[in-house]
């Protein structure tokens, strides 16, 4: 269990240095192709969009401190400021004082709501839907149709592996769910899908609705407790199970959790599978915050939590984190024919797609502007495909490309240099086709 109060001393480490506003805050001489993509770059989605200090993590840490010191009463106005953050964790990656910035922000949101402030309008709607017995998902879709996409055996109690599909796979991106199921079959996993699965609670926890989150977390933990392993295709669900469930329940998970990409990565690195079918495209990769940076940071933290000498062990912790960041790249490089090009901001310093933390739901303008900035960075690599593996990144990037195309139609301008011609592709979909 965590709370803002428990993070008081961690929050107090903030000296307001504002390194957290930058990607590569400690790499001034990082080489890039031009003046825009070189060295350190201001890369906080909220701060870049709004400009006020309170929308950067550096300012939020001081809002949290004021709240903890009783100098700032919780209010709707305060919640509006604190919610306009994608919780991408770029700030946590930069922080030399190891402040768990995402935890502080999420717990501050929860504390504000816990004090009686209503969740923001659209956030409340998704919280209500997730609790509604007829839905149990944020999309307003019937619960009865949760597994409609799947033609395999549902609720197979003999299986030891379950595929946790998540609401987006079940209702919005069924193609990804189908491709994932197909990959699992091709790789020889005996798995099942459960009809009683409910929302993992990721958007609910991120937006501070902790009571609702705990309800769904407990239901899912109970529902899946007898499985050996849960497999995921959704970055948000995976992060929530792997990082948040143990933290919020105070207990270790009763099962192993793996993202489908990790299964593929393991088999590739063990030499058990080869991807021989070619994929002859110029591809750049976007690191989803949930599966890459957040998990990397949790790996680093777990090592440091066990250490009585950070001076010696911090290097190993960083190495373990960086090894995690390398995984999707190992998979991409294993694809025959691929012309893989890295963007400037990658791995722990990757720039967010702009959708996370409840931002897409509540602050659509900020979400779109952030996605456009990332799409522009992708286009600067000369790639024709922007590949990632997260339903929210896919949706937000697709919206950005669509907005650029609309702008092209309206103005007659060629916006291909900023990403209008990019194809947005889910890696799992490609892997299913290639395996």
């Amino acid at each position: 269990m965590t709370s803002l109060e428990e993070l008081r001393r961690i929050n107090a480490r903030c000296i307001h240095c504002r390194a957290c506003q930058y990607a590569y805050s400690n790499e001034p001489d990082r080489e890039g192709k031009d003046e825009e993509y070189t060295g350190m770059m201001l890369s906080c989605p909220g701060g870049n969009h709004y400009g006020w200090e309170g929308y950067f993590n550096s300012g939020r840490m001081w809002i949290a401190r004021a709240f903890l010191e009783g100098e700032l009463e919780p209010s709707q106005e305060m919640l509006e400021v604190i919610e306009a953050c994608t919780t991408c964790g770029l700030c946590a990656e930069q922080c030399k004082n190891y402040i768990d910035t995402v935890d502080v922000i999420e717990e501050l949101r929860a504390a504000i709501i816990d004090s009686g402030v209503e969740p923001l309008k659209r956030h409340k709607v998704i919280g209500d839907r997730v609790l509604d017995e007829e839905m149990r998902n944020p999309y307003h879709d019937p619960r009865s149709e949760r597994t409609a996409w799947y033609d395999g055996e549902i609720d197979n109690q003999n299986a030891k592996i379950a595929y946790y599909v998540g609401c987006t796979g079940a209702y919005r991106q069924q193609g990804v769910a189908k491709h994932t199921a197909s990959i699992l079959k091709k790789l020889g996993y005996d798995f099942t899908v459960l009809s009683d699965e409910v929302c993992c609670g990721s958007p609910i926890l991120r937006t501070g609705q902790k009571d609702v989150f705990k309800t769904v977390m407990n239901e899912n933990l109970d529902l899946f407790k007898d499985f050996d392993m849960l497999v995921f295709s959704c970055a948000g669900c995976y992060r929530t199970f792997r990082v948040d469930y143990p933290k919020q329940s105070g207990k270790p998970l009763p099962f192993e959790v793996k993202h489908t990409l990790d299964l593929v990565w393991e088999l590739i690195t063990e030499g058990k599978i080869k991807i021989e079918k070619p994929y002859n495209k110029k591809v750049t990769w976007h690191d989803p915050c949930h599966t890459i940076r957040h998990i990397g940071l949790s790996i680093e933290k777990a090592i440091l939590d066990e250490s009585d000498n950070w001076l010696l062990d911090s290097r190993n912790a960083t190495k373990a984190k960086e090894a995690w960041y390398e995984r999707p790249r190992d998979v991409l490089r294993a694809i025959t024919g691929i012309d893989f090009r890295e963007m400037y901001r990658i791995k722990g310093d990757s720039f967010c797609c702009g959708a996370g933390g409840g931002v897409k739901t509540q602050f659509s303008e900020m979400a779109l502007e952030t996605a456009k900035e990332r799409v522009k960075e992708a286009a600067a690599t000369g790639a024709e495909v922007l590949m990632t593996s997260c339903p929210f990144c896919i949706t937000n990037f697709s919206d950005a490309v669509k907005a650029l195309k609309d702008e092209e139609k309206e103005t007659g301008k060629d916006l291909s240099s900023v990403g209008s011609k990019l194809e947005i592709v889910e890696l799992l979909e490609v892997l299913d086709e290639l395996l």
Partner: protein
Amino acid sequence: MSQLYNKVTDEVVKELSAICGDKFVTDSLPLRHSYMAKGIMGLEAVVPEVVVRPANKDEVLKILVVANENLSPVTPAAGGLSGGFALPAIEPGGILMDMTRMNRLEVDEKNRVMTVEPGVRCGDAWRIFKKKHPDWAPPIPDGAPPGATILGDAIERGFSLVTGKFGPQADMIIGLEIALPTGELFRTGSWALDGAKAFYRWGIGPNPDGLFLGSQGSMGIITKCAIKLVPHPHYKTIVAYGGDSWEHIIEPAWEIGRHEMGIAENTVMVQGGNWPLVMTRWPKSNVPIDYKFYEKIGVDEYWMNSEVWAWSQEELDFTLKKIDETYKAYEVEKKTVCKKQDLHPKQIASRLKKPNLIAVPYGLYEAGFLFITWYCPWLESPRMMEEYCAKMEEYGFPPTMWVASIDHARQAIVMPILCFDSSEEGIYDKIREFNLETTKSFVKQGWINYRPDPFVHAPYTFSKAKEYYRMLVKFRKLLDPNLILHPGRLAIPWGAVTDLPNPIEEGK
């Protein structure tokens, strides 16, 4: 002090909005709290009443006029010399002017000068120079994170990446553009002449820029500054020598610096410290606190780094050889050992990196730290550091100490890093006591606080410089008749920050 000033009214907020646009003015309480900073450079922040983000000097001037008419205090802030809002608003709050939108930068390689607005951050300047002006470096502070601003460091007389050679950052200023609460705007140096470039600091003379450098924004708001570029040769390295006392790391550095020319010119930055400087970068509960561990991993009790820049490998090698000879001669003369450290290339690269986050992690040790910075003659610095370290231990703080040479080891910048637990009850009173005791002693010894805090350093210093303070207040009243700029800073008005006898009253 509150009777001297008025609260920021809704009417004032409307006027500010009319100047900058609604989008750039806020009285939102959470947003105002986000501009707080207690630690690193000061502990005295209060929440401003309104925050405004001007786009240019004209807006700055208009805001100042409105503030002056309403008697509202004004605090300008962008990034400050250490990345945080190093000069946040203090009692009674008032208008905080967030200067980050004013971030234009121009570089004139031929005249070797750049002009910067207050919001130009070191990280951004470094990036631009790296691609567009690779043979030059922006004069950024050494050891400050990327969010620190060039102008913030310069006007506070901070140390730069080449301070060992060029002196404090303020010595590199060629011209200032200054906005006053009276609605006046003027430039200093050759810039004062219509159409003239900023090429000569002393200009058409006499030059008043010193009134603004170190004023902590209390004399006028600097809306633009012309500052020298730093040549950026690409043969660079770091050498470090250990010692068994402060004296034995300070004196050999003086031997190198005192020649002023030759290898002293190549030694652009000289800085050192003691072993707790390594220890207190990590959580107290998760790091060894006994020197034995640090000794085992090769950390000297005391050490001094010399950063050397040269135009060729030959020049670099020659400088390193001469530095080594100097240390060897010193060892013989003083019958001591100044062991040359065997630095890993990664350690060298890390120490050459600018801007960097080297000053940041001291928040980890106990969740709070404060830099307290003093200047003294270089050869007196061992005495100051010994006294400081002893006092830190007496008060229960680890004796973490950093020192750097200013201008060829003429002056020392001595900086204890006070690591403390900000959640401990009464900790701020304890720090104040510590500060008072050391300040009284140091001022008596003729040493100067580099960035005086308004409640301790400034009153005690000016109590020993009464004639100067009286003159300073006269100048201040000429520039800012209603004392609206950053009230309390430089102990103006006096009664607002201290109960000590007022030098002005005493002079009557």
